[in-house]
């Protein structure tokens, strides 16, 4: 038994040793910064929602890797094709696990919180500043990529939104499709005329699609901006005021009046493109081929922009950053350079129905490929977004979605909701 006990203790010690050694950082590469690119070895971990998990998406990504490996032939690239829904959890768990990503592609509103936590690196080390990027990129994405006067994200693609109407539905309702309603008040009047119901009173065709099935944050930002009121100014809230209240009350008056709450189709496509709504918010591209909605449907669409005092177009986008804890910062920058080759940006834009974020996006192949992309590319000069969100924006995104919904559904007083959200913005 004694011998057995000793053997057991030895086994136990071995297990402890094994456990301790597995807790070490064996998976972390040695730093390649300063090493000649041709000699650098290791794995570059990239997190990006810019390539859909389709065969075409993988092929385009492989081209980027091939271009990168012309400079860094011995380095591997480990992609994580995230979505915007799980981007934060991927980033936070990678940091907690001690294996942060080297390249992270995020969106508008991510830069300020992550830069303030020093999770993203200042791109000035690679000669990219807000002044330099101004000459190369879409102007609308420079402010969202900047924190404290420094650039932390390199714009890849712009995600612009417009409004579309169905000409046939307008004519049936006695409205002139050549004079689209642009102010919030006009849109409400038209939407009520365009809404169709069954005998029981249930909406069978929405008059206006607010594109808010998962939350009202972006639509509130858009409608508010159309009144000439940006959501945030210099990091401070600018919505707990008369304009903000009117905008929220307007959304409340639209939901379950011209569109049922939570309406979306299985493909999560804009409802006006499928005819489920007579008018509504659309993304940055439409496929007019037979594989898409077809030329006949396309011809029935007319695009316009919100204007309740200021003509605007909501513009988000993908921004590439380098992880501040990366051990391959030089390689990460080389990868971003491969990612921002114009032909690659064109491919990403096409894959995601967005616009390439280079300066002359209006002349890009994507803008020339369909009428909606052409329209939103021309409208980039009217771009708005959250403007300068606070450093706790990631927390506020969820707060906006929840509390605006509560106000719209009549569970909370709209004025109190806006005051509360303003108080929570830090």
């Amino acid at each position, binding site marked *: *038994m*004694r011998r*057995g*006990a000793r053997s*057991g*203790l030895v086994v*136990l010690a071995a*297990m*402890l040793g094994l*456990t301790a050694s597995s807790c070490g950082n064996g998976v972390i590469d040695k730093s390649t910064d300063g090493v000649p690119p041709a000699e650098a070895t290791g794995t570059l971990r990239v997190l990006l929602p810019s390539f859909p998990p389709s065969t075409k998406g993988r092929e385009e990504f492989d081209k980027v890797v091939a271009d990168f490996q012309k400079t860094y032939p011995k380095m591997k690239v480990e992609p994580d094709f995230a979505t915007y829904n799980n981007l*934060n*959890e991927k*980033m*936070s*768990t990678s*940091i*907690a696990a001690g294996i942060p990503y080297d390249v992270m592609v995020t969106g508008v509103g991510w830069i300020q*919180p992550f830069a*303030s*936590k*020093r*999770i993203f690196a200042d791109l000035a080390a690679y000669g990219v500043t807000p002044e330099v990027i101004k000459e190369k990129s879409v102007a609308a994405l420079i402010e969202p990529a900047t924190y404290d006067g420094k650039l932390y994200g390199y714009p890849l693609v712009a995600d612009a939104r417009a409004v579309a109407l169905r000409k046939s539905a307008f004519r049936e309702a006695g409205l002139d499709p050549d004079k689209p309603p642009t102010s919030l008040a006009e849109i409400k009047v038209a939407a009520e005329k365009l809404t169709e119901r069954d005998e*029981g009173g*249930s909406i069978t065709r929405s008059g206006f699609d607010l594109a808010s099935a*998962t939350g009202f944050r972006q639509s509130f930002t858009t409608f508010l901006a159309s009144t000439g009121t940006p959501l945030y100014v210099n990091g401070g809230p600018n919505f707990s005021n008369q304009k903000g209240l009117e905008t929220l009350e307007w959304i409340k008056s639209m939901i379950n009046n011209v569109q*049922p*709450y*939570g309406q979306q189709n299985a493909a999560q496509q804009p409802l006006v493109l499928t005819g489920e709504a007579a008018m509504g918010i659309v993304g940055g591209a439409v496929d007019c081929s037979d594989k898409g909605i077809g030329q006949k449907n396309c011809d029935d669409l007319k695009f316009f922009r919100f204007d309740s005092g200021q003509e605007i177009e909501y513009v988000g986008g993908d921004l590439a950053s380098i992880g501040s804890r990366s051990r391959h910062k030089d390689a990460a920058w080389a990868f971003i350079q491969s990612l921002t080759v114009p032909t690659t940006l064109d491919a990403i834009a096409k894959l995601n129905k967005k616009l390439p974020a280079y300066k002359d996006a209006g002349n890009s192949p994507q803008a020339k490929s369909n009428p909606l992309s052409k329209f939103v590319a021309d409208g980039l000069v009217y771009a708005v977004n959250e403007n300068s969100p606070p450093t*706790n924006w*990631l*927390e506020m*995104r*969820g*707060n906006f*979605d*929840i*509390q605006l*919904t*509560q106000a719209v*559904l009549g*569970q*909370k007083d709209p004025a109190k909701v806006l005051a509360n959200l303003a108080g929570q913005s830090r």
Partner: protein
Amino acid sequence: MSATLEHPTKTAAAPRGAAPVKESRELIRSQVRAGWILLSPALLHSGIFIVIPVLAVLVLSLTDYSFGDSWSWVGLGNYADLFRDVDFQASLVNTVLYAVVVIPISMAIALAVAVGLNQKIKGLGFFRTAFYIPTVTATVAIATIWLWIYNPGSGLANGFLSLFGFAPNRWLADPATALPSLMVVGIWQGLGTKIIIYLAALQGVSRDLLESADLDGASRWQKFVNVTLPALSPVQFFVLITSIVGTFQVFDLVYVMTRGGPGTETRVLVLDIYQNAFQDLKLGYASAETVIMMIVIALFIGAGRLLQKADVND
């Protein structure tokens, strides 16, 4: 363990003197050592995967750690903030409500079904398998199917109700019906495990007692209430405890079906913790919330124990 080990010491020591006592003590020591060695893998596992994380959560709950480079001690600040946080309050209320409704209803249905499956009926194997399928099916798959059932336009639920002339309901999109709709799925999904446990326990109910009750002229209901139910008491407690823990940890169902909405109508504690930790990056705050959740679960289990004791004393 001590009772069985002490016994040979007393019996062996008395007649034979000092040497046998020494041998006996040595035997006990070696048995104790063997016990610890056999126990050590489980202890190691518990230490690494339970004790260390719990301690880490306790420490993190006193900080403002948010995955960045810097953090600071905030004392009980996170706890104070939690009790002012309306999302946390809604999550706590929804979770307790979910547990209070789902646990007793699912236990009652599971017991009734188990009693049915304990009879000699045709197709017993099929029914047992059918009731257990939801338990072994991935929650994400279940949630996706129920999303279709609850679809306001083309879902089975509205289709069924329309046969009786009822107007379509917006189930998960309506604040009044969203949480009850999730409760129905929760009850249905949790039946399988409970049924299997009850079924095993029912087969262990003393035949002698049941036959005695028959001889005394007891009805089926009287036999169930006075013989079967008391015999199931320890199992009831086990099912209650596992149900409390399970319902308080509900997450995947809510995440897939509603993401806590509309508003905070279906927001539950684990979803709120997940949101705070991995979406809002407030790990310190989420840790404080986890500690509160552990305390609430402990209180519920304590209440369950008190009920069990009262039941036994009765």
